[in-house]
């Protein structure tokens, strides 16, 4: 039973909240649906799961049609291969962690269910807590039970509704790592709803940005983060380029690592990453300094040579966003209008981008080699 190209979703409705979206997602992708509360994000997840029937919608998973309002097809949730991790986890309070997972193993023979449940709980590092009831577990542990239960269904798509909303920062980072690890182990799409952009930046390969039910941006995270014109994003989280790089050298004594990306190399300040791993990198636009000549005698390690590909001046803001093409990566720099004038910055001009090694954020780190690259 092979899984075809992932999921395709189309929704159009005006009541009770306006929602008009259309997107597809494939195996091993992490699609983040991002937007403020009330923008319709959870509705999209519920539509995919079959918990909600919009006036007009179509949801297809591989060769199966789950929802199609044109033909009147509608498969109820228990007949869809979805794994849903609810915002408040929705664990069954009267069952143990193992019991919870077993409920989703109905498609396996009774004798096997216990062992399978145990294996799944091991996968999310919960073997000790197997016999505990939900009220005896912490928030992070409950979420992992919910994850194990969602995966038990062997779903064609994994849906997560605000998975990190109810946990504190330290737990959040650990959970994000776990989900990232899971994502690499599975070959199904993951759709994650969040109002926190940090989640998007850390985990997502693609993002769908919603505002009042409409998509204002859709595409890979890397591409979107390189757009100079998303002023509302700028207001919300601040602009910064996001892209993937691999660790090619480490300098433990200097506390630096060398990252190679599709356009050059960077030196970032970090001690813990291992050689050969892939890292997601974020460079805040404010941390990028531009120069028209190659400078000398500066403290920073990174001087990248590129060409100005776009300049975006938003009348609402004092500063201007300059997009610089460095190899295949589009870097963003936030500078004053004054500076633009002084340097005579124009599209097509060669320019140098200066970045401090400490300004480079290393986000998700792959534990293994990138042999499962898409």
């Amino acid at each position, binding site marked *: 039973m092979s899984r075809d190209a992932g999921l395709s979703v189309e929704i159009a409705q005006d009541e009770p909240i306006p929602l008009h979206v259309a997107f597809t997602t494939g195996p091993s992708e992490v699609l983040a649906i991002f937007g403020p509360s009330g923008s319709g994000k959870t509705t999209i997840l519920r539509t995919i799961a079959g918990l909600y029937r919009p006036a007009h919608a179509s949801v297809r998973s591989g060769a199966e049609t789950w929802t199609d309002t044109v033909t009147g097809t509608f498969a109820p949730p228990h007949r869809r291969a979805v794994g849903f991790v*609810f915002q408040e986890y*929705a664990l*069954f309070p*009267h069952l143990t962690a193992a019991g919870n997972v077993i409920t989703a193993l109905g498609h396996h023979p009774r004798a096997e269910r216990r062992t399978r449940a145990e294996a799944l709980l091991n996968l999310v590092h919960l073997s000790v807590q197997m016999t505990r009831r939900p009220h005896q577990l912490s928030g992070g542990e409950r979420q992992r039970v919910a994850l194990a239960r969602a995966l038990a269904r062997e779903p064609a798509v994994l849906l997560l509704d605000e998975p990190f909303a109810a946990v504190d920062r330290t737990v959040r980072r650990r959970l994000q790592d776990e989900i990232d690890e899971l994502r690499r182990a599975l070959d199904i799409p993951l759709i994650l709803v969040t109002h926190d952009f940090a989640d998007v930046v850390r985990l997502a390969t693609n993002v769908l940005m919603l505002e009042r039910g409409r998509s204002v941006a859709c595409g890979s995270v890397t591409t979107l983060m390189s757009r100079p014109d998303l002023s509302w994003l700028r207001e919300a989280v601040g602009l910064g380029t996001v892209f993937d790089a691999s660790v090619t050298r480490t300098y433990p004594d200097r506390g630096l690592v060398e990252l190679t990306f599709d356009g050059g190399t960077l030196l970032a300040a970090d001690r813990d990453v291992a050689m050969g791993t892939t890292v997601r990198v974020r460079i805040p636009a404010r941390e990028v300094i531009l120069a028209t000549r190659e400078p000398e005698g500066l403290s920073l390690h990174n001087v990248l040579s590129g060409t100005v590909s776009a300049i975006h001046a938003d009348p609402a803001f004092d500063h201007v966003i300059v997009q610089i093409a460095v190899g295949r990566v589009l870097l963003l720099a936030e500078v004053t209008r004054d500076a633009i004038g002084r340097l005579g910055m124009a599209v097509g001009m060669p320019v140098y981008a200066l970045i401090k090694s400490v300004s480079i954020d290393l986000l998700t780190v792959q534990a293994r080699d990138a042999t499962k690259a898409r």
Partner: protein
Amino acid sequence: MDWAALSLSLQLGLATLIVLLPISVALGRTLAVHRFVGKGVLESLVALPLVLPPTVLGFYLLLAFGARSPLGQLFGSVTGHSLAFSFEGLVLASIFVNLPFAVQPVQRAFESIPTDVREAAACCGMTPWRALVAIEFPLAWPGVVTAAILTFAHTLGEFGVVLMVGGNIPAETRTLSIAIYDRMQAFDDRAAGVMAATLLALALATLVATNVLSRRVGRRDV
């Protein structure tokens, strides 16, 4: 102690339970889970016996199945005896009168199950029936038992409606509460006292049982 009356009261309680409980579970769950046009009206109708004086209930019930009504005449022609002033008539009246006691605790119990838990059951691949049996009932059963206890206790204590619809016929409709009334009119205070004390004890037992159960519901709700 009028043993026949006590037995009759207990039989009435049990019979009411057996008929009413399946209805009230279905109704209670429907009201808890679904939204539909006229739901508010239905809830009000269910609650109506709580606020209506027993005489009003008795009046309308007699109208509905007394010997002069179509229903009463149909019953009479089929069975040979009247529906009113018979045990069957009492059970029928009891079902109406006890509707709120049987439905409301069940409704509350099903309402206390978070919606996302129900949805999670569906997303775990459980059919609606399986979800009901494996997830909802294990969580809601204290409410069902509370409903059963309250209904039973309330039936034991019913007087006004029983008197109007059942009369005071020994071993047929003379329940314990009616028997107390009868004994007082016969100036047999001793017998009346014994039976009153019995009913009091049963009522107290009910309250204790319901109390214990409602604490159990609280603990499950995590």
